[in-house]
């Protein structure tokens, strides 16, 4: 049963990677929308690795919260600075 869960998680991580790399990064999306979506997906991926691969889902709660806080803070910092930076004038 557990095996199936982690395999599904792996499959999802692979598909999410393919979508961000070869679809969301393309010009069909405005840079702002594409970039914010890419980082939201990256944060979700990191969280899946922490909870399922690193087994924090069943770890003592303080440990889980420390790492969840890292995801939140790192993503907020990156996206926050990104959104406060004026966009590059398109060539």
């Amino acid at each position: 049963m557990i095996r199936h869960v982690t395999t599904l998680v792996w499959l999802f991580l692979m598909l999410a990677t393919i979508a961000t790399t070869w679809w969301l990064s393309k010009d069909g999306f405005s840079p702002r929308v594409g970039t914010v979506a890419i980082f939201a997906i990256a944060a979700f991926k990191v969280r899946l690795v922490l909870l399922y691969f690193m087994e924090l889902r069943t770890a003592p709660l303080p440990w889980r919260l420390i790492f969840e806080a890292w995801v939140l803070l790192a993503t907020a910092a990156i996206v926050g600075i990104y959104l406060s930076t004026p966009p590059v004038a398109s060539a």
Partner: protein
Amino acid sequence: MVAVRSGSGETRRLPGVEGVWVFVAADMVFFALLFVSFMLGRQEATAVFEASRQTLDVNFGGINTLILLTSSWCVVLAVEAVKRNALDQVPRLIAGAFLLGVAFMVSKALEYGGKIKAGISMLSNDFYMYYFTLTGIHLLHVFAGNILLIVLWNKARARQFSADRCVVLECGATYWHMVDLLWIVLFPLLYLLR
């Protein structure tokens, strides 16, 4: 193997030993500071960062992400196999994780080679300084992880792991997943953020 269950469900347990988790947390904070530093550097020279970013090949970054995710998954399966006492499968799974780790290093070497051939180095501009530094530090982590995987592979072949003796394997797994996790952020940061 005695599963202790409380009334509300299974016992909460941190895999491996706490020291490894402290190290992993510290390493992740260090990387988070590098991410912020990169973003602040980008704020100072957005046009240069964007022009340089466009010279990177997203195929390398994306394929490397798929490689590390799959390598991590092999390690997850190895830990699960040990816990089921399916010990025959463990060396193969760890070997798979190791070979994928090597594939990551080969792909990185090809990528660096291409850049250097094009006359690009750490000194070219601030973007490439960050690019080579961040991916370089990460690559050292991959290298250390590969050595760790060889050690774990040897232990698995010597049947040193079992359902009630898997702390060392869990420690190695925790570290290797962190290396994967850091790349999940590093890749969009350097290659995709536009």
